[in-house]
């Protein structure tokens, strides 16, 4: 089976955030980037496991410039067979979905996996756009993914619980925590990753639907009000009268 896994880079959560070009653009200087955890720990690892069990090929796909090559090589070191990079920095998730859809039309996949969301913009949106552009069924927030024949059985997160559902491939599935266990690339993986194919493709023309006008940093917290353990009645009064939350 052939599986396509969408992987993207995001700033490490501990990064300090700043902006440039009059607050229109994110400033990547001095930021350490990582592969988006949902893409790496769950989507990619489960794809590799499925291919280990059933045979086939895992291809990763990334929409972005050459600064993504570092995480793409990491994906190959973890065990992907080959990689595609579409050479444009997408301005919105729709654009990334559009480019992935165009590229994946050239070679049909039995399954497309992606992360449930990117931790920088938390859009949680790419998967359902991609599925629609490819006319494929979509299951989101999958915490468990099993395959028998052509049927995928998926456990997915919902508010306060879970749902078990079934779908026939090909389909698009977004991965949440629980789908697989993180794999650390070993020495052999790292060595072979250097010779695995990374195909850089030119983007297809796309008219942006949404643009960022500005970024702003939220105002500083007004500071914490400290109370002693003997002042719990006062705390409750503050929550009622000042914060107005109870």
């Amino acid at each position, binding site marked *: 089976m052939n599986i396509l896994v969408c992987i993207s880079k995001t*700033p490490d*959560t*501990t990064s300090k*955030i700043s902006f440039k070009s009059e607050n229109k653009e994110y400033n990547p200087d001095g930021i350490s980037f990582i592969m988006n*955890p949902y893409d790496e720990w769950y989507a990619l690892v489960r794809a590799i496991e499925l291919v280990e069990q059933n045979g086939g090929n895992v291809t990763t796909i990334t929409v972005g410039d050459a600064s993504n090559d570092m995480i793409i090589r990491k994906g190959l070191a973890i065990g992907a067979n080959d990689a595609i990079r579409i050479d444009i920095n997408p301005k*919105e*998730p*729709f654009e990334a*979905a559009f480019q992935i859809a165009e590229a994946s039309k050239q070679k049909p996949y039995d399954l497309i996996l992606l992360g449930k969301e990117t*931790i*920088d*913009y*938390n859009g949680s*949106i790419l*998967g*359902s*756009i991609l599925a*629609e552009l490819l006319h494929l069924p*979509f*299951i*989101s*927030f999958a915490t468990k993914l099993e395959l028998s024949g052509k049927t995928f059985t998926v456990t997915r*997160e*919902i*508010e*306060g*619980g*879970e*749902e078990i*559902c*079934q*779908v*026939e491939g090909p389909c698009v599935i977004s991965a949440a*925590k629980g789908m697989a266990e993180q794999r650390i690339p070993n020495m052999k993986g790292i060595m072979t990753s250097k010779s695995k194919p990374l195909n850089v493709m030119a983007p297809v023309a796309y008219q*942006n*639907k*949404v*643009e*960022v*006008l500005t*970024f*702003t*940093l*939220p105002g500083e917290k*007004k500071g*914490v*009000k*400290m*109370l*002693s*353990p003997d*002042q*719990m009645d006062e*705390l*409750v009064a503050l*929550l*009622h009268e000042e*914060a107005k*939350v*109870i």
Partner: protein
Amino acid sequence: MSVLVFIETTNGTIKKSGLEAMYFGNLIAAQKNTSCHAVLFGNADKANILGKYGAKSVFYIDYSKGFDTGIYTEGVLSAAATVGADIIIIAHTFNGKSFAGSVAARWNAGIVTSVNALPNFDNGITVTKSVFSGKAVATYRINTTKAVLTLAGNSIQIQESGSEVTPQKLDWTPSEPKVKVLERKTSEGLVPLPEAELVVSAGRGMKGPENWGIVEELAKALQATTACSRPVADTGWRPHHEHVGQTGVAIKPNLYIAIGISGAIQHLAGVNNSKTIVVINKDPEAPFFKAADYGVVGDLFEVVPKLTEAVKKFKSSQ
């Protein structure tokens, strides 16, 4: 030109997130001098109240086979065509975010998810949302005439502003879903974490699962939902759906009480959009105090029962 709001129901009951979306749609319609309509799947017995939050008409789709992105996308777009909508509002719930993108793609519309305030229509459609785990706010402009917005929970205070309407059946028949829902398990009674207004959360400072009684007592007194830090869920002290943070659920309650949680950046990433944060920790240097509105330095085993007593006293005086 009108606004259409998708309303999610569970066994016919409308969730708070749905009422928020309805009222948000109503305010947008008022801004644009147009009308606001609602669409839902399944049982519409309790849907009359949508009128009170601004729905001029309410359509229901006779369908009860469970959530499928394709069916929901088609149904909502059929309703959009019926009412001539150019804006579709969907609450940013698990199911909402699972099909909003498909709606936008099929409608060829711009989409922004997890919007946290009313749009501005002076120059195209501009909206704001919180990005980078709550560390910044982005303002977007949508350049298409049609737009899909998902609304972040607890972003808007709902108010009754109209009168009940009788739901009508949408003239559209769903096909067979491609995704078959076999089973649905939800914990009864509790307000699910992503929707909770009040959250009591505890971390490794609790020492062990056997001590959670005091946390549950406090939550019960406040009628709050319980949450926990990641190591607590990872070691099985608490169920996984309670885990909040970067890799868990991101929440935005009115009140977040953090008990024995250090306030690691990955934890804060999921909770720092809370309106008010109370931190209880024995270590005055705990990083969480920097993100807090109210702080108590002390032993949680002493502080939490005292707080519970104070809450009970307050509630009985109300």
